[in-house]
């Protein structure tokens, strides 16, 4: 049984109230940081912890913090990215609705470390009910003296607000999020300048994912070195994995980084195997944008090593035989799943969510969706597969923000690993479009 650093008390009755939360050690990190540490010492502990951004990119959080510009007399901001929208990812919603004070505690300690006096939690608009849970908890934190003026008599002031989005995946990209927080369309900004220099209201700004911020209290309480002892290599600490698709026990699991993928899928401690007694066909391990892998490559690397739930192990083999840990959105597909249909579905998503600023993405995602739609519906041609791969290639690297890559990768990977299934759709449209049709395997193409 792995250690639970974030979710140990998640099912305690009343843990969403400050009273019960404090009985279980809540807000200790605020007292420790503000009373006994300088802001730079807090940053140093987060650096030592090896914590990597939990939103998907995996960039070291402490390093990101150290880039924050600190010109004298200019306000700076901490903004929490709670715009959880990557298909397959639903960990932050659970964390915020059940443990609102954990995020608030993390925001206070982190804001102190960064010298921010106003901080925002940008939450996706669909989660208005979670916004209300957070606002209630924030009011409790104000009343207890953890927020507002002169926190714990230290002279440090902090106001914390929750801001709802309006339904746009792109606002999970940090500069689109800042545009949205300024009341505009969520169009990502050109970089540089990076938010660390010119972010919200053109002020220095750090944007961190909910789960990253929620890890800060335990890092401050136990020390960065202790945190770094958990996990494997540069994948330190614990990670929330939101597991969905054709699993017996979908849900949110906090794992110590390093659990074997096979154990995560099949053991009763985690997902309990594939539903209906079926076989596993493929997994998208880190949210819809990361490359899909067939069963044999998700359980073992190309070299035959057991694949582990770590940043490094999942990306072993690059995009040829590997994938990414990403946001921890773990989507399992059973043997009856149509890969063409699933790829079309994801392409439709990215086309729908493209902000339209960059033509390779705006037009390219549309072409991906259209071509995949016609293959799935029995009107594909032999050329289509190569056209798809070519369009995907031309989006990559040619856009302001990573939505382009997010749209291209799933298509490239599906063709790489499941090309024969696409060919079957094109060559045998009548069989492939029958309701409930299941690809019978390569033999049928001979």
């Amino acid at each position, binding site marked *: 049984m792995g250690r639970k650093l974030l979710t140990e008390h998640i099912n305690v009755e009343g843990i969403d109230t400050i009273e019960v939360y404090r009985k279980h050690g809540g807000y200790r990190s605020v007292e420790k940081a503000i009373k006994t540490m300088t802001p730079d010492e807090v940053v140093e502990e987060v650096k030592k912890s090896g914590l990597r951004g939990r939103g998907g990119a995996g960039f070291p959080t402490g390093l990101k913090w150290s880039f924050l510009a600190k010109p004298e007399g200019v306000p700076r901001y901490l903004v929490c990215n709670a715009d959880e*929208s*990557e*298909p*397959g*990812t*639903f960990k*932050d*919603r659970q964390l915020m609705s059940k443990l609102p004070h954990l995020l608030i505690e993390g925001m206070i300690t982190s804001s102190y470390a960064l010298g921010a006096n106003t901080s*925002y939690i940008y939450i*996706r*608009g*669909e*989660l*208005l*009910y979670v916004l*209300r849970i957070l*606002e*209630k908890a*924030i*009011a*409790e934190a*104000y*009343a207890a003296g953890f927020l*507002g003026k002169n926190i714990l008599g230290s002279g440090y002031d902090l*106001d914390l*607000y929750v*801001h*709802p989005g*309006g*339904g*746009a*995946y792109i606002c999970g990209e940090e500069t689109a999020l800042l545009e*949205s*927080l*300024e*009341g*505009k*369309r*969520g169009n990502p900004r050109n970089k540089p300048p990076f938010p660390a220099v010119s972010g919200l*209201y053109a002020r220095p700004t750090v944007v961190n994912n909910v789960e990253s911020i929620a890890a800060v209290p335990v890092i401050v309480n136990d020390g960065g070195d202790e945190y770094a002892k958990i996990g494997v290599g540069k994948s330190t600490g614990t990670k929330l994995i*939101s*597991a*969905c*698709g*054709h699993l017996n026990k*979908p*849900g*949110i699991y906090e794992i110590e980084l390093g659990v074997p993928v096979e154990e995560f899928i099949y053991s009763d401690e985690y997902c309990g195997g594939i539903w209906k007694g079926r076989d596993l066909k493929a997994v*998208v391990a880190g949210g*819809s944008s990361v490359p899909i892998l067939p069963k044999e490559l998700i359980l073992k690397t190309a070299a035959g090593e057991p694949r582990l739930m770590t940043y490094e192990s999942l990306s072993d083999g690059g995009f040829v035989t590997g994938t990414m840990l990403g946001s921890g959105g773990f*989507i399992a*597909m059973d043997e009856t*799943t149509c890969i063409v*249909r*699933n790829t079309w*579905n994801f392409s439709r*998503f990215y086309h*729908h*969510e493209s*902000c339209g600023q960059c033509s390779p993405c705006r037009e390219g995602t549309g072409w991906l969706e259209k071509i995949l739609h016609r293959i799935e519906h029995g009107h594909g041609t032999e050329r289509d597969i190569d056209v798809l791969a070519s369009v995907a290639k031309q989006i990559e690297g040619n856009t302001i923000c990573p939505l382009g890559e997010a749209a291209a990768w799933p298509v490239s990977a599906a063709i790489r690993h499941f090309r024969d299934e696409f060919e079957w759709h094109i060559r045998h449209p009548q069989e492939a479009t029958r309701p409930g049709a299941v690809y019978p395997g390569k033999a049928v193409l001979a």
Partner: protein
Amino acid sequence: MSLPTESIQKPQFSEAAKAEIDRICKQYPAERRKSAMLPVLHIAQAEFGGWVAPEVQDLVAEVLGVKPIEVYEVSTFYTMFNLKPVGKHVLEICRTGPCQLRGSDELTLELERITGAKVGEGPSADGLFTLKEVECLAACGFAPVVQVREKYYEQLDTEESVNAMLSELRNMVHRPALPWEETGLPNALANN
């Protein structure tokens, strides 16, 4: 084409909504009132029948001190804002991968059959339901999922769960009160 001769009644926010808007605007620097755009649009949609008519968007512009076009360009970008009249309940059905793997296509067909409404079209004949397909709602482990206002209905893969949702909505006598009217304002924030 002639211009309408009847004057359209200019919409006004209720006192409760005005108080909530004032509270929200204080969250941002005074010269950054436009930041309140999305929260105020949510309030407007809840106040005026579940959609934001052009006159309602003009009212939002007025309240925020911005040009109407600044509201239009936002309301058309974000998918949560309905730009046409809707039924009493808008059923937002998640259609993205993880929900599709667990039967969201079948759920959509079933909801169309039961309510008589069609996705992307107007409300059902009884005015009760509008069906809208949306992208990932971040509830993939509890698929398939439908959102109605602020509530998530999850694991709608059985006849019972679908019927329970629909009968709860049918039996709602009126649109529920605005959330802050039920729970009161978070008062520590009101003083800032």
